């Protein structure tokens, strides 16, 4: 179960990274309109990292 949850968390971080990178690349053209997409990417990375930290704690690793 922890493995599945870990894989989901990694997928979330990766997808968040993809969205964030693609949105940041459009800052010159989109300016403020990229904000919702940037927030989404950042939130996904934050949640994924948070869940990975919880999983690491559950496994007893630092």
């Amino acid at each position, binding site marked *: 179960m922890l493995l599945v949850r870990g894989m989901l968390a990694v997928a979330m971080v990766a997808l968040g990274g993809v969205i964030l990178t693609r949105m940041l690349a459009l800052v010159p053209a989109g300016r403020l309109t990229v904000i*919702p997409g940037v927030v989404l990417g950042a939130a*996904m990375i934050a949640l994924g990292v948070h869940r990975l930290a919880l999983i690491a704690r559950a496994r007893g690793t630092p």
Partner: protein
Amino acid sequence: MARPKSSEPELRRSVTPWGSFSWGYSDVGADIFVGLGLVLAWAAGASNVAFLFAGVVYVCIGLAYTELAATYPVAGGGQYFVMRGLGDIFGFIAGWAVLLDFTIDVTLFAWTSVDYTSQLVPSLVNSTHPWLHFVVVLGLVLGLCLLNVIGVRESTAFNGVVSALDVLSESAILCLGFLFAFRPQLLIHTMQMHWPTPYQLMLGTSLAIISFVGLESISQAAQETQRPASVIPRTSVALILTILIFALAYSNLALGLQPWHPITDAGGHPMQFWQIFPHNADNQGKAVALLAAQVPIYGAFAALYVPVLGAVLLLISSNSGVFGSSRIAYAMSTSNLLPSVFQRVNRRYRTPMISIVFFSIIAIVELIFAAAPGLFPQVSVLYTRFFHGENGLEFLADLYAFGAATSYSFVFLGLIGLRLTDPLSPRKFKIPLNIPMRFRGERVDFPVIAVLGFLGIFSILMFTLRTHALGRIFGPTWLVLGILAYLLYRRHRRLPLLRSEKRNWRTEQAEILRRAGELELMDEYIANVKASDARRAETTTT
């Protein structure tokens, strides 16, 4: 302080951390299935901004509920926190607004459950078969009422399975959608070319908040959760972030989606995906299923199961409305905010039958109001003339947004009140960003986030009153009728009308923590109380 013993039967604390998460998820997670289409229809190119604003407010609300539910793990929810923080009459108003939301919840989610089913069963499409749609929704509401009367409750295990399937399904849709169908340039183009008017943006933002309603379930679950002060903060934060990410992800994806199959209007002109929602109530009611079907390759499979999964999740949420309204009414009745008839338990089934039937009847009345324009052309003319031609789904969403914004506004005020008047209760989870100060001789932490959250939700309440033609009439009418009934009841019982009954909150708090199994927190609370009393006695002597 003595530890009182109670002979009354208590709810079994059998809800685990995952159970607590899935309980909340099956309630709040279903909201995006309803809210997405409505927001896309009104906020157009700013739908993601509407969700972002409502989402930030929702995070503040979620943090407030987390702190309150972990500190006061009782099954009263918002009305209990507000009653304790601000007084009886405000507790009644908050609880009455929540009851409006729960009754709307029953109808709205049963309605959209049928809408999602209509994706696979076209004879249930509301615009072409309004009577069949109405009869099926009515049948669902009556069926849920009957199930709750005879005591068949939703099982936490079933909720857990459906929630897990839904989280996996939504994650798959969003991952594949963002990887293979999302065009950031299209998102930027849509936002720049289809930015709504201020009125539409206000309307869209007030509708976006309905995607985040149901946090009451966190506090509802608190009374049945093992070690709630520890478990609730952990599960709530995960729940809040998951729901926020889904809402933001769906809205961004919908605006920047390159459809798998070309979408054209009646004239054969190509359309963007989000453009299928304005002026189309049928599509608004099943937005997630329509979006899932547009994900390349995976959409062929998703088109078959997402409507079923959505319909089941929505039905669970509808059931939580029937169950939750009777439980809130029960809690309000025990606090003398509602007549004792709402506490009466049926001898045969041992369920609050009167409460369940009463609020189910209100849900059916709301259904009739929502369905009337589709069923009777004369009523449709009336709605067009006086209420901007709102459809059934919009009528229900109006009231849902009104009830949520009203109750959440009071919850923020209740949190501020409790931080000032009850600083001695141990708070295992505390909202960050506080200003330390002294109030009535005690050191308190003034919550800045609660003030910001109140301003946010109050602005959404103002948007609702400004832009919702039916919500601004029926919502305040519900509150005024409720307050009149409350005053009559309190007068009849010779209780204070505008002031609160005298209660011993210290004894009650110790008892709450004892029942929750939080014995360390109970000891800490008793020690805080003794230290505070000693300080006061010392000050008086000197």
